[in-house]
Structure formats: C-alpha cells, structure tokens
C-alpha cells in the first residue's frame, strides 16, 4: 500500500492539527515577522539531533533491534568530532569521524544483540555507560576549536517569507539531514533492501525461508543507522554549539526515541514530530525572554503558563500516543526478540 495513503489514513487527527498550527504561524508572522522567523529557525535547529536520532532508532527497530544507546552514540561521536576539530581544524574530517564512531558503536550493539543475543535494552545501556564514562574521563577543560560550520544561504530560496528563513539559510549538516530524511523514507518503502528490512523486523523466520540473511541485515542496518546518530553528535559540536561539554547531549538521544514512536516508525512523520518537539522548546525559550508588551493581547494568557509547561507538551503528547489514544501504535512485530536460526 502506498505509504502516503497509509500516513493519511492512520494520522488524520495529527495532519489536521499540523494544518491548524501552520495557520497559527502564518497569522503570527503578520504580527511580528522577526520573532516568528527566529522561533521557526530555532525549531529546525533543535529538531536536527532529534530527527537523526529517530532515524537511527527506526532503522534499527524496523529490522527488529531496539536501540536505546542513541544517547551514548551521539555523545561519544560529539566528543570525537570535537577532538578531531581541535587537532586538525578539518570540519569534514571531524564530521566523518563522528559518523564513524556512531557506526562502530552501532556495530557493537549489533554484535551484542544478534550474535550474543543479550537483552537489547541492556546492550543499549552498556553503550550509554561506555560513552558517558569515556567522555567524562578524557575530557579536558580548555580545548579550543578553530571554528564551526557556517550557514549557507541558498540564493533565491532564502528570501521566501517564513520558509526561507527556516529552511534555506542553514549550515551544511542541516541540509544533509533534511536530505537524509527523504533518502531514508525512499530507501525503507521503495527499495528491495527496505522491503527485506521490514520483513526481518516483522517475521524473521519467514524472511529466512525465502533466503534472506537475517543476521547480515540486522548487522548492516544497525551499524549504518549508528552513523546517523554519529552525525547527530557531530552536528552538536560542529554546527550547533561549536564546543563540547560533559553530557552535552542532555537526553536528546532518549527524546529521539519518543520522536520515533510518535512518528510511528516512519521517517517523514518522525520529522514532523521532531519539528513539533523543537517548536515547543523554541517557543518556551522565546516566551521566557519576551516581555508582556511584545505579546499581542489575545496571546497574553500564554505568558501566564509557567514556561516549563509548554516545554512539557511534546512529552505529554508522546505519553498519550503510547497509551494508544487516537489509534494503535504498533512497532514492528519481532522487535526486541533475538533471532535464532534453526
């Protein structure tokens, strides 16, 4: 079945809510274009690690492997990318190192899950602890980087109102991420590899009987997905912040799992969810810093709510989604179960 039709069928409520949000944004833009553009750009920036983490998670889960080590992958990749940047100044090399670290940790997770058949939650925890330990131990205060990725405006497109500021004045890794979302969507639903991946996550024995190598698929998918988490880590130090701090991922690896579930293991929907989470955080921050005079009277009540509550909203929504309100959320049927070839 056409995945776009499936999307609409199972997500009518969300699509309508998203449309309402768009209307709101356009209206707000007419009142104060600068703030709206700032909030939107900020939403996109905040959503990048989330969507990359969610893509990493969903590629693994679609193959049947649970990855809760995304946080660790991001953190260690961020650290290594930072170090490479400090010692070589080569941003491209630093990015690739980050992705490599993510892939290596992904391979480690695959090894634990597929070959050793360890409980996958424990495997992910091992990766997190490893990353926290290594980064905490080796981090030295005072290292200085030579720079970070700068925004590259796309001529013409960058001047479109609202969307221009949000999408077309971004640094390279952001563009890469946006591209990757569509690449993963295409790959998962329109290619033979994607079909086999999904089969392996739903009914590995059936896939086995038609000659698909379940072990190989899981190893490859989890390792490659790891490089996406690595990219997220690289993004944090090389594009977003420009330096490293202990525990700088700050739970985003776990939020990425919520984004994945909220997006029903579908890359495009997960992107929508990531933007929503990013938007809530950006809005929350913006409201904190605006004083009452800048806010139109009809929205003053927003300032009354403690700003943290607005930040809470995406997490509340995830809980609601997980509880099954508004339709069943169904992960791949064989996820989390080690496969044993007879």
């Amino acid at each position, binding site marked *: 079945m056409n995945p776009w039709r499936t999307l609409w069928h199972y997500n009518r409520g969300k699509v309508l809510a998203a449309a309402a949000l768009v209307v709101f944004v356009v209206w707000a833009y007419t009142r104060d274009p600068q703030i709206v553009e700032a909030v939107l750009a900020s939403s996109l920036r905040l959503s990048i690690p989330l969507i990359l983490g969610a893509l990493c998670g969903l590629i693994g889960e679609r193959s049947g492997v649970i990855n809760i080590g995304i946080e660790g992958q991001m953190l260690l990749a961020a650290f290594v990318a930072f170090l490479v940047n400090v010692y070589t100044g080569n941003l491209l090399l630093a990015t690739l190192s980050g992705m490599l670290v993510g892939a290596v940790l992904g391979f480690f997770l695959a090894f634990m899950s597929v070959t050793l058949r360890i409980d996958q939650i424990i495997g992910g925890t091992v990766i997190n602890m490893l990353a926290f330990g290594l980064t905490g131990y080796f981090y030295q205060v005072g290292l200085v980087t030579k720079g970070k990725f700068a925004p590259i405006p796309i001529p013409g497109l960058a001047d479109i109102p609202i969307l221009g500021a949000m999408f077309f004045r971004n640094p390279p890794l952001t563009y890469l991420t946006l591209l990757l979302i569509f690449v993963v969507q295409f790959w998962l639903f329109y*290619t*033979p590899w994607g079909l086999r991946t999904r089969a392996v996550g739903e*009914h590995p024995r059936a*896939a086995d009987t*038609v000659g698909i190598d379940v072990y190989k698929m899981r190893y490859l998918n989890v390792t490659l997905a790891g490089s996406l988490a690595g990219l997220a880590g690289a993004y944090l130090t090389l594009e977003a912040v420009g330096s490293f701090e202990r525990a700088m991922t700050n739970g985003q690896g776990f939020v990425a799992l919520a984004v994945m579930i909220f997006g029903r293991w579908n890359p495009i929907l997960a992107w929508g969810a990531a933007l929503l989470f990013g938007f809530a955080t950006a809005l929350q921050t913006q409201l904190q810093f605006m004083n009452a005079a800048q806010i139109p009277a009809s929205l003053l009540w927003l300032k009354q709510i403690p700003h943290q509550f607005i930040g809470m909203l995406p997490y509340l929504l995830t809980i609601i989604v997980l509880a099954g309100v508004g339709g069943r959320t169904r992960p791949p*049927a064989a996820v989390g179960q080690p496969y044993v070839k007879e």
Partner: protein
Amino acid sequence: MSEFVLEVRGITKRFPGVLANDHVHFDLRPGEVHALLGENGAGKSTLMNIIYGLYQPDEGEIRVAGQPVHIRGPHDAIRLGIGMVHQHFMLIPVFTVAENLILGAEVTRGPMLDLERARQVVRHLSEEYGLQVDPDARVEDLPVGVQQRVEILKALYREARILILDEPTAVLTPQEVEDLFHIMHNLKARGVGIIFITHKLKEVLAVADRITVMRRGKVVGTTVPAETDERGLAAMMVGREVVLEVEKGPAHPGEVVLEVRDLRVEEHGVPVVDGVSLQVRAGEILGLAGVQGNGQTELAEALTGLRRPQQGTLVLNGEEMPFEDARVLIEHGLAHIPEDRQKHGLVMPFSVADNMVLCTYYKPPFARGLQRQPQAILENAERLIEQFDVRTSGPLAPVATLSGGNQQKVIVAREFSRPVRFLLANQPTRGLDVGSIEYIHKRIIEMRDQGVGVLLISAELDEILSLADRIAVMYEGKIVAEVDAVEADKTTLGIWMAGGQAQGAGHGTTRSAGAAAS
C-alpha cells in the same frame, strides 16, 4: 531424461539421541501427488527440511531431474524449483499479497521496487493456476484458506516444479480442503509434482497417486490407494494392527460420582452454560457431544475449579464442592485432561519429571515438610515413563521437546497415577496421530473398567460413538438430548448438535423443552 523430477537416496540425518532419517529413499514424478504419511516424530518434516535446504543430511544424495545436487539453503532449493508451503505460514502479516510474493526475489525498476509489475504477476499466476487472490490485500486480513493460496503462489512465482505441502489441511475448514484438492488437481495438470505430508488417512486415500509411509526414521513402504485402506495404512504407520474402533465391554455403572445441578455460567451477561444438570456414575463414560463453542469449554472450567459459575451446585462423591478451588477437587479424586495441553496441562519449560508431579508435589513422598524430594520425583517419573511408554530423551528433558502425543501421555500418566474417582477428558486426542489416539482411548476405557466415572467432551463424533456408554448433546449452553449409546446414530446426533429437533429426544428428564427450536 529421468522419469523422476526429484529423487532422494540413502538420506540419513542424526540429531543428538535420535536417528531422524535412516537411509530414506523417496522419489517424485512430475504431475503426481505423492503423499508422505507418518506419525509425529516419524521423520517426515526432517526429510522435507533436508530437501528444502534447512538441514544438511549426514549421508545420502538428492537428484533433481536426474542431476545430483547439493542444497545448502532455501536459496538453492528455490533455484532448483523446489517450493515449500509450511504448516505455519511464512508470510509477513502486515505486507500485501504482492509484497509477500516478491520478498527475496524482488522485481525492480532501477533501484526501486516495481509493485505494479508485482501486481501483474500475481494476477497472471492467479488466472493461470486458478488461485484467486487480490494482490493488494494485506495478508493479515485474509482468511486462512486464502493465505495458503498466497503461500502456494509464492512457490509458483519462483517457478517451482516440486511443491511440498506440509500438513496443509490442519488449519482448513472442510470447504477449504475441497478447494485445496481442486488446486492440487490444477497443479498436477501442469506437470507440478506435489509432496503431500499429512497424518490424515482419509485425505491421503482421496487425493494421492502414491503413498509412502515412514516410521521411526525409516521408510516402511510405498503403495497406491487402490491397494490399501485406512486400516492398512494405520498398521504401516504404527507397526502393528491398529484398532481404529476401540474394543470395550459393557459398562457396569455404580453410584453417582459426579452430579451437577443447574449450572449457569455467564460471559459479559450472556449465559454460555444455561442451566445444565448432569450425572456421571462410576464405571461409565458419559460422552458430551457438540460443535465447539456451545459452552463445553466453560462447563469444563467450572467443573475443574477454573471458573466460578453464576449459579449451580457441584457434588463429587456425594460431597458438595466449592467452585474455583482445583486443589480441593483434585484431593477428592478429580482428574482432568485439559483441552489445551500446552496452556493448561503442562508447564512447558519444566522437565517431564516436574510435570508429572504437578498435582502432588506438595505431599509425601515428593515433599517432606518444606523440602522437595528430587530423588522421589525422578524415580516416579522413570516409572511412569516406562509404564505409559512416553518417548523422551529422559525424565529431565523439558516437556516442550516432546511431540504432542507424548505430551498428552505425560498428562495422562500424571492424572492416572493417583487415586481417581472422576475423570474429565476434554478433547483428549486433538492433534494426535493414530497411534497416540489408540493409546489414549485404551487408557480411558481401562479407567472406566476400574470404576472411574468419565465425562468425555469431544467435537469428534466418531470418538464419542466409539467410547461413550451414554451420550448427551450440548447446544447453545444447554443439554438438548441424552441417550444411551446403543440407541444413538450419527445422523440424529448431528441434528441435535445443530440445534434441530429429532425423534427420540432424551431419556429421563428432558431438557430440550423449547431450547432446541432453531
């Protein structure tokens, strides 16, 4: 050019402790249905798994179209034109028919899946072989019979000339079985050779061109339907004369061991057992006939301490019993062979020995105070394994490693090895092979002759007619008829089972007043 599309010579396969295939010879001609018959554990599935590449043989050779081949995995088998339809379907429930069909052998246009071409392939094959399926239907939405057609199409898509059907009728309704035979006929006409694995004697005689019987890993013989019958085949399968109709002497009923009065069980406010009253005497078998789903399950649960009825009285050996207390019932002489042996009769990961003391583990000699006595438990298991001829690698083997028939024997051994006044046997031979069925029937008759009162609940009318002394029919939660077995015939029973009125309705208290009007 060989006359055979598949030949298998001298195939031997050993597993730890078991010789699964012992120098097996088997061959298949194009356009024939060759049935492979045998009890559970005879080696049929092992042989098929070897042909399909899921196992490697220790010795022997396989030839396809006269050429010797080496099959290392399903990939090789598929390439050689061997297709397998498994007993438990190997389909991805959330995928469509077209997606399931092409999985592993995808049609592509550049890097992309070409689902439109896949759909065309499905329609083309559907028409050619007469297997109607909608390419865009999700497999999980399809009825079982149609899912099976998808499995067959999968094999045909990969150009199978040899089709292995593993127990295909186990999950089909009688109508769907007819449809399957029709499809097999079409396939035969196109030169596809079919290996039909089953343990159902009637089907084999109806549809096979040749029949090969396996027993304990060896081929016992090959014959054709014209030269044999059910008794002959059963004898080959089990190795001795099998009595398909059990021998029993007349019953000598004694006092009432079980009495049920006005039992009423409700599910969501609807009565599923509606005012049932029964009596079972010592030394007799009361057979409760009826199509599954008319309250038999709930009745059994109420009588064995698993469910509290809304209303009713239960009297065992003259003493009134509480409901929902299985232990009290067991201690007063109740034995139970449950409907679902894996869910309610056994603890699957536990050993055979532990399963054999599930009802008595807390009493001496299996326990002294708080302490378990493992030695006593082991000795008990060894004794029972011998006495009841349970085929297992040992008393410590997990009961999950036993075949269905042997699992049932473990339950029977457990229930029959303690003092018993009343036995409730619920579908005791479901899913079992001919040899095991014969064994269980014999033991139940033995129990009856030793003075136990037996309530036999079964959906197999043949079983009821062959074992019961008295027969009651259950329909929509009520007992609609009760007759002596000698006076019962299949047709009348069939009418009662379907809720109709028939002559000779009931002796003693009639409960069919108004209830049997359909």
